[in-house]
């Protein structure tokens, strides 16, 4: 151990479902920080703790089954372990499930062969005891050549012992890999680590050879493990897993399985759309009040305007989504933590497969009802490249929560509350129809992409079905907190930047047009809201809106809608605010007055209503399909690491939106 170093860098490494995250939370508590691994949006969780005068920096690596990665997050885990630069790891804590020790030890033997100091934390030791599994610690330590600690990360037992073992960690004398075979196949490689390193840089020819070695080596590891298990573990013949089995027969049942899945969806939607509405309104009102206060208490002028209508308006537009995103992540984390998500994937895989997706696409598809950004980020668990790209490309078609205010406004222009059919409210039916339209379009696009995208890669769906567990509320809370933070900072930056640009475009005009308007208003005694509308019309945004009018006329939009289309590129819901400014309803929160203004808006020449049914439907369809979200495009780029994919996404969604609106408008006109 390097005693000169003041901080010891350790990493938690283990299979998925080994209770790694819970152990990480128990060790580091509130010191955790979430960042990203260089170049990828895979979250990097780092925390710290002190023990016996030494400070520890802990990294919780993504779960992996072996050092031969088969998905993106496994690759990140492996590369971090192999890293030999300045922030290299001093000790690896191997986390293994004591109830399923054999498979978990495969990775352990590979890590030992890297000749890095290791400690084995046998997690969920209480459950192993309940199942009458006895593990002989000393024998296991001797055979593996590293310290072994029994841990229960949920009840936080064994943690002190683990910490002191980490301080004593040493490089094992045991060797598990087949060095004779390696020497024969790769005479130039001097260690197992060099072989593991090689797989990331080698050509196809060599890669085949490595795969051949991997297969034989892993088989021989399991033979060695069979011996180790026989010596060190005593377990009853018949394992008692009846609770999981009973729950499975319900959750994967032909009828109840699907019923339960849709029930859960229903509950999640209720919370995301109705319960979240309360804190969202509260946030909006607080921000509005604060903006008002700032505008009035600071000296008037350009800077004041930028701060209030650029910066604060931008931050408000981000923060307002926090309740929805937090609630959504809360449900998803609980469903994953309990083991239910794996069952949802299990029962839906067959259907998803028909559309070029797989069971693991279910989570991203559901998340995108709140926001496409976290949903694109959650596709990283999909190991198949083609499936992952298809999922990323189509999820933004699913109606996210930013479209909701737009839908609500336009639908309320077309229908009144008293419009009922068989006791159901028309508005509600149309709104539900819009969501179905989004899902339908996403599946259709996936189905088409399935035939377009070509890949040599095998499409497989081999997944562990973990035992059901009660959720760990502390872990859930931490995860939700981290995801919300990540959303605030990642998406937030872009939304904020765009709202500042938009502020400039809407509040500035060429030469001194604004001064002239103001002087005229002074003479004619024009009300402020009308003056604001005039200003917007002559601003840069207004000029752009008029410039694109010929382009959007075929789908029924005028330049006023054009301005809103431009401003919606920051975030779709900005549409409502922009329309409020254009139609000078003065108060953007009051949709009711805006609705009336829009409904009674007449064409200046023909005097016919502007917002006809055809225009409204065209707008609805356009907002359902158009890619009006910079942050989503940026996320697609950072997840795929190629500008090709956000570009394709932008083009196909724009074409789809324009084409559909064109058809809808001309059919209803």
């Amino acid at each position, binding site marked *: 151990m390097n005693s000169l170093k003041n901080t010891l860098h350790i990493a938690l490494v283990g299979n998925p479902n080994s209770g790694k995250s819970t152990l990480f939370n128990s060790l580091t508590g509130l010191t955790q920080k979430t960042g990203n691994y260089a170049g990828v949006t895979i979250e990097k969780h780092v925390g710290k703790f002190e023990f016996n005068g030494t400070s520890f920096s802990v990294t919780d690596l993504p779960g992996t*089954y072996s050092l031969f990665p088969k998905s993106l997050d496994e690759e990140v885990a492996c590369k971090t372990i192999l890293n030999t630069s300045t922030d290299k790891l001093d000790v690896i804590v191997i986390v293994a499930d004591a109830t399923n020790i054999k498979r978990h030890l495969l990775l352990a033997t590979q890590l030992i062969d890297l000749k890095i100091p290791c400690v084995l934390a046998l997690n969920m030791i209480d459950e192993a005891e309940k199942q009458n599994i006895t593990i002989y610690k000393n024998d296991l330590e001797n055979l593996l050549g590293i310290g072994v600690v029994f841990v229960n990360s949920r009840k936080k037992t064994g943690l002190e012992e683990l910490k002191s073992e980490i301080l004593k960690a040493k490089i094992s004398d045991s060797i598990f890999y087949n060095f004779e075979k390696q020497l024969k196949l790769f005479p130039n490689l001097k260690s197992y680590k060099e072989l593991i390193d090689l797989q990331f840089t080698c050509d196809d020819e060599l890669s085949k050879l490595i795969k051949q070695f991997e297969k034989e080596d892993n088989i021989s590891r399991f033979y060695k493990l069979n011996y180790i298990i026989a010596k060190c573990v005593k377990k009853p013949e018949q394992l008692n897993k009846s609770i999981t089995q009973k729950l499975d027969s319900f959750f994967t049942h032909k009828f109840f399985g699907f019923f339960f899945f849709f029930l859960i969806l229903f509950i999640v939607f209720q919370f995301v759309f109705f319960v979240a509405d309360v804190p969202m309104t509260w946030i909006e009102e607080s921000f509005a009040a604060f903006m008002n206060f700032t505008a009035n208490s600071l000296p008037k002028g350009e800077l004041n305007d930028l701060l209030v209508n650029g910066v604060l308006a931008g931050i408000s537009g981000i923060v307002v989504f926090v309740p929805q995103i937090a609630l959504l992540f809360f449900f998803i984390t609980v469903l994953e933590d309990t083991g239910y998500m794996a069952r949802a994937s299990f029962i839906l895989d067959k259907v998803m497969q028909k559309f070029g997706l797989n069971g693991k696409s279910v989570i991203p598809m559901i998340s995108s009802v709140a926001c496409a950004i976290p949903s694109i980020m959650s596709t990283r668990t999909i190991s198949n490249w083609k499936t992952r790209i298809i999922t990323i490309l189509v999820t933004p078609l699913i109606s996210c929560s930013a479209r909701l205010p737009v839908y609500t406004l336009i639908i309320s222009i077309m229908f009144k509350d008293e419009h009922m059919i068989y006791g159901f409210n028309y508005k509600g039916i149309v709104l539900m129809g819009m969501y179905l339209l989004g899902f339908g379009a996403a599946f259709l696009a996936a189905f088409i992409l399935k035939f377009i995208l070509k890949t040599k890669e095998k499409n497989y769906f081999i997944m562990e079905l973990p035992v059901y567990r009660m959720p760990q509320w502390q872990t859930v809370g931490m995860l939700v907190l981290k995801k919300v933070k990540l959303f605030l900072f990642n998406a937030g930056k872009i939304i904020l930047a765009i709202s500042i640009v938009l502020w400039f475009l809407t509040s500035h005009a060429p030469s001194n047009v604004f001064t002239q308007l103001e002087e005229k208003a002074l003479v004619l005694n024009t009300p402020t809201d009308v003056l604001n509308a005039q200003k917007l019309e002559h601003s840069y945004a207004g000029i752009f809106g008029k410039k694109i009018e010929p382009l959007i006329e075929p789908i029924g939009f005028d330049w006023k809608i054009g301005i809103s289309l431009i401003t919606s590129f920051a975030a779709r819901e900005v549409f409502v605010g922009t329309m409020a400014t254009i139609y000078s309803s003065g108060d953007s929160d009051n949709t009711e007055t805006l609705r009336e203004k829009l409904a009674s808006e007449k064409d200046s020449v023909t005097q016919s209503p502007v917002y006809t049914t055809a225009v409204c439907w065209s707008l609805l369809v356009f907002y359902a399909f158009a890619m009006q979200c910079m942050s989503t495009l940026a996320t697609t780029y950072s997840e795929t690491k190629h500008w090709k994919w956000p570009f394709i996404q932008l083009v196909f969604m724009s074409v789809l939106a324009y084409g559909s609106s064109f058809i809808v408008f001309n059919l209803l006109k």
Partner: protein
Amino acid sequence: MTLDQLKLGQTAIVQEFTDDFLSLKFIEMGCLPGEIVKVVNIAPMQDPIAIEVSGYVLSLRKQEASTVVVTLLNDVVLNKTN
């Protein structure tokens, strides 16, 4: 016979694999020649299936299961417990 042909509740021993790429994944998941596997669940639309192997449950598609050659251990077909 291959793994996808097993009925619910049937137990078999893994013999070999017919797909190189998938075999790597199977082995790393502890499903290797000599292991005993048991079909414990079949999804509502008959695909994927779930097998018990090495002390835990693994889900896989029938198409993937068809690359695993197995020998049947018994012919006892248990009824699904529901």
